[in-house]
């Protein structure tokens, strides 16, 4: 069980003083900072960010209970809300570790609408802030030096609650009595734009109308670069929905919001959502387990865009999350889990190795892994694993996996090529500058496969050569299918395997159909400037791999052994340091000389004098073949 936990909390959580009667804890999703406010700030405010340089400590006057506290982007301005009517701004001087901030403060209470109560505020920039009140939304610019604010834009609208997605600077307002009409606003350096509103389909429409959509059931996050509103739709006895589901609404920058995906939870109860590595993680309270969904993974047996969990439910390693009411664990987007009572902030992480054994369908597993961030080594280990198994019928699986890898590899190569071409043709006129394509870990190239998978696989004992050749050919087939130029070392691997098993006729057939020799030279760093035929190339490859006998057998199989250079073979044999090998090769050529010229001696033109000397040194003069007496 223990190695099946595919979710874990990070090793280095952010630690802070745990929440207590004297210490209030706040979390700012925008800066991912935890504020520990002791005694209303009088005995200190400690701010802990994701890393140490975001940590600040200061003191401020206790002017009542703090309801909300947030830094602007870059810790420039601190905003503190103590009442539902007013927010205080403080300019920070972060040179000092402990600051006395009260002197720099000014209070801002001239809100647009009288009697409105502030539901909350969000910083969208270092000096731009949005107030959400029950009566509307107000966008201000703050000038701490002048101790003033300037209204940039406002909109009147009845608001039940709001959600903020700092990543995209989009604020979502719940409006209408039932609360299920959602109005998003997008913010970008001084501008506020209203996006098209949309309605969440409620499982039951209450009569009389009352607030029916809770902010706990809505979350916003970006998945695969797109903004989604996630709605946790609980099961209802009256409506025909046996179990809960998560409904995803795609929220594009332009255009209407559309219901796009349905994630089937197949259970009921209380849930919480996270997004990790573009996966939707759904925590289930009562079973203390979590499910993950990949919205890009196509489900063959489901209706369009309906998704089942990728993997069976498992708890988070090594903790179980008690999401009970008494607990102070909270979940924040995208991937944050906070235990205020214990004083920890964790990032949730996906562990890929356990997924390998949980997902039996290797094609689906590859689809899943190829979209994950740290996937390379896991993918390579899966490749090794399926080759190791050598189970019956694994070739089609091997082929599917290779095709999926090469699909991604090819897309990267093409993007790279387009980029290079664009760069060569000079800076583009007006059009958006080409970005160099990012090489993600999912790009598994031939050298990765060779180094981590194929090379070891061909060396392994007990694997039939038939299977080795089949796998290599399958990889070459897949590369060809995606029109990727095959690297010479893969050909070398095939040649080596064929020669080791004396499968010369197969080798010939591959050469005949140009499967092995391609535009790229088969040979690296050979002294010969030009190689006339594929046979010569193969001999060179084998000699460079010290497979001297293999090379001899090969050249004899093609009937070329009367014409090859003895010196080349003797050199190679001598270099191996294997005396018996040298003896064998030497005798082979002596016999050839005898057959061709009736004399075992080498011709001066063959330049084998040093080898003759070497032979005499090793085996003595008398070991030399004597010319047959006439």
């Amino acid at each position: 069980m223990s190695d099946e936990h595919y979710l874990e909390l990070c090793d280095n959580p952010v630690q802070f003083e745990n929440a207590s009667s004297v210490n209030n804890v706040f979390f700012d999703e925008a800066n991912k900072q935890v504020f520990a406010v002791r005694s209303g700030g009088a005995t200190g405010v400690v701010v802990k960010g994701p890393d140490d340089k975001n940590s600040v400590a200061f003191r401020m006057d206790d002017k009542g209970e703090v309801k909300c506290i947030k830094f602007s982007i870059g810790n420039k301005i601190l905003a503190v809300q103590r009442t539902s009517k007013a927010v205080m701004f403080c300019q920070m001087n972060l040179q000092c570790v402990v600051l006395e901030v009260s002197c720099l403060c000014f209070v801002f209470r001239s809100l647009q609408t009288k009697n409105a109560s502030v539901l909350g505020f969000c910083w969208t920039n270092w000096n731009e802030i949005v107030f959400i009140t029950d009566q509307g939304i107000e966008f201000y610019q703050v000038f701490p030096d002048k101790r003033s604010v300037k209204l940039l834009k406002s909109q009147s609208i009845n608001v039940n609650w709001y959600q903020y997605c700092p990543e995209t600077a989009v604020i979502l307002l719940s409006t209408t009595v039932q609360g299920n009409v959602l109005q998003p606003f997008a913010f970008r350096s001084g501008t506020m734009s209203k996006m098209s509103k949309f309605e969440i389909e409620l499982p039951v429409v209450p009569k009389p109308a009352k607030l029916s959509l809770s902010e706990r059931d809505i979350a916003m996050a970006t998945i695969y670069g797109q903004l989604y509103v996630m709605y946790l739709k609980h099961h209802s006895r009256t409506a025909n929905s046996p179990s809960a589901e998560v409904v995803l609404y795609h929220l594009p920058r332009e255009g209407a919001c559309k219901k796009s995906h349905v994630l089937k939870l197949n259970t009921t109860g209380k849930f919480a959502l996270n997004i990790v590595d573009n996966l939707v993680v759904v925590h289930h309270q009562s079973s203390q387990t979590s499910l993950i969904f990949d919205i890009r993974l196509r489900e063959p047996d489901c209706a369009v865009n309906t998704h089942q969990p990728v993997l069976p439910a498992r708890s988070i390693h090594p903790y179980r999350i008690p999401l009970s009411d008494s607990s102070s664990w909270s979940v924040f987007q995208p991937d944050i889990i906070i235990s205020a009572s214990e004083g920890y902030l964790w990032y949730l992480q996906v562990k890929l190795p356990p997924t390998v054994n949980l997902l039996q369908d290797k094609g689906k597993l590859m689809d899943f892994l190829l979209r994950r961030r740290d996937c390379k080594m896991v993918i390579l280990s899966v490749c090794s694993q399926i080759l190791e198994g050598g189970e019956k019928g694994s070739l089609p699986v091997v082929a599917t996996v290779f095709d999926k890898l090469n699909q991604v590899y090819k897309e990267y190569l093409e993007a790279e090529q387009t980029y290079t071409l664009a760069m060569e043709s000079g800076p583009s006129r007006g059009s958006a500058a080409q970005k160099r394509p990012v090489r993600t870990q999912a790009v598994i190239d031939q050298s990765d496969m060779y180094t981590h998978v194929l090379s070891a696989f061909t060396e392994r004992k007990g694997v039939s050569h038939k299977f080795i050749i089949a796998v290599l050919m399958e990889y070459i087939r897949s590369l060809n299918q995606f029109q990727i130029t095959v690297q010479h070392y893969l050909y070398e691997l095939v040649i080596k395997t064929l020669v080791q098993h004396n499968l010369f006729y197969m080798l010939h057939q591959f050469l005949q159909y140009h499967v092995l020799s391609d535009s790229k030279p088969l040979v690296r760093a050979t002294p010969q400037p030009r190689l006339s035929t594929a046979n010569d190339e193969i001999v060179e490859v084998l000699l460079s791999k010290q497979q001297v006998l293999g090379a001899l057998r090969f050249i004899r199989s093609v009937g070329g052994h009367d014409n090859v250079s003895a010196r080349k073979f003797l050199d190679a044999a001598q270099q191996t340091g294997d005396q018996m090998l040298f003896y064998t090769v030497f005798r082979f050529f002596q016999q050839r000389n005898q057959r061709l010229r009736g004399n075992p001696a080498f011709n001066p033109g063959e330049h084998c004098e040093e080898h003759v000397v070497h032979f005499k040194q090793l085996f003595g003069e008398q070991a030399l073949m004597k010319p047959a007496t006439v």
Partner: protein
Amino acid sequence: CEVYAAPRMATGMQEKQYTPSLLSFFIYNPSFGPREGEEEKKILFYHPCDVEKNEKIRNVGLCEAIVQFTRTFCPTKPAKSLHTQKNRQFFFEPEDNFWIVMVVRNPMIEKPNKDGKPPTIEYQEEEILDTVYGAVLRQCYSMYKLFNGTFGRAMEAGGVELLTQKLEKFFYRYLQTLHLQSCDLLDVFGGISFFPLDKMTYLKIQSFVNRVEESLSLVKYTAFLYNDQLIWSGLEQDDMRILYKYLTTSLFPRHSEPELAGRDSPLRPEVAGNLLHYGRFLTGPANLKDPEAKFRFPKIFVNKEDSYEELHLIVYKAMSAAACFMISASVELTREFCEQLDSLVGPQLTLLASDICEQFNINRRISGPDKEPQFKFIYFNHMNLAEKSTIHMRKTASVSLTSVHPDLMKILGDINCDFARVDEDEEIIVKAMTDYWVVGKKSDQRELYVILNQKNANLIEVNEEVKRLCATQFNNIFFLD
């Protein structure tokens, strides 16, 4: 162009021309009846069988004597053939002391005489080539060995009695399929015609073969052919060479008729109800659904290092694609296995066949409209046994048709003999009587014979023309990629 089929009639009014034909064919072992009066024991097979016993003994004795006599000149290379006015004898010792002799009657012209005199017969003893018929004789043995193993094997298993039975059974039918009149240079080469294919489709076939061998682990070797041309052989070259000969000259022609036959023809095989694929067995059961179907396949023998290996030969075909699966003969093949093979291979092979066909048509379109090349040639590569001929029409079970005059074929054979004598690269240009130029080129294990019809060309022009052809046509003669 004209098509010359043998036997042919000469143009002269009543002159009758006879093509070379088989006079007799016998197999003997001198060690089986060394003593006088036991000579008959030496004879293991004799065709024609109705020859009187003493004549058989006389003929065998003569052969023995000739071989013995010529051994005195060269102990390692006794005579291979004996030329006489009326016929030519070929000797071949495939295994120790086992001799196969083939006697071919020379072609002849019968000229009628006036005044009721018997016609004059003119033997054309120089018209036939040792290389061609020597190769035919060796092929006879190879074919026997493919289906029966060596003579020695039969001797071990059941002595002379079994061997003579096997020889009788095999050669009785085989000799009827020998068409000596249409043997030519291609028999000397005994080559394999490879199907031109792009790399990607070739790799798909590799993938198919590997997958089938993986899922049907009984399959030891696989060969893949398309349009009677080889694409892949898991067998060694020499075994494939003779199996290819069997498939293309015997098995495939026998089965091509049903495919060509119309829908309602009684020749058309019974097709199963829902047609998911076009696969069917060419050897073994004709119809899997038949409850009486027998799951017996021909057995073949292939070389394995120092011995040989006995295999079931399953030939399975879908459209123009044929796959040969070879399975150890020690395994008994069942209905279940055949059904499994059918359901696994049938759909894949059907798909592959249409892929190959499509790809082939694309390649042909790229390489130009399928017009006949302006020249005729035969190409052979000794290294991979690849042969290609634009002279020969499609082979059938009975005859092979050539599109050039037999005289030209004879010239090709002669050039080939000249090449065989020397080891070096050579080129021979011949001006034939009929205004044709015949050019033979040999270089680096490859032989090319070109026939040009350019009446007024001189030697230099012909030479230039062939050079041009080599550069344009033979760069990639086999593989359009």
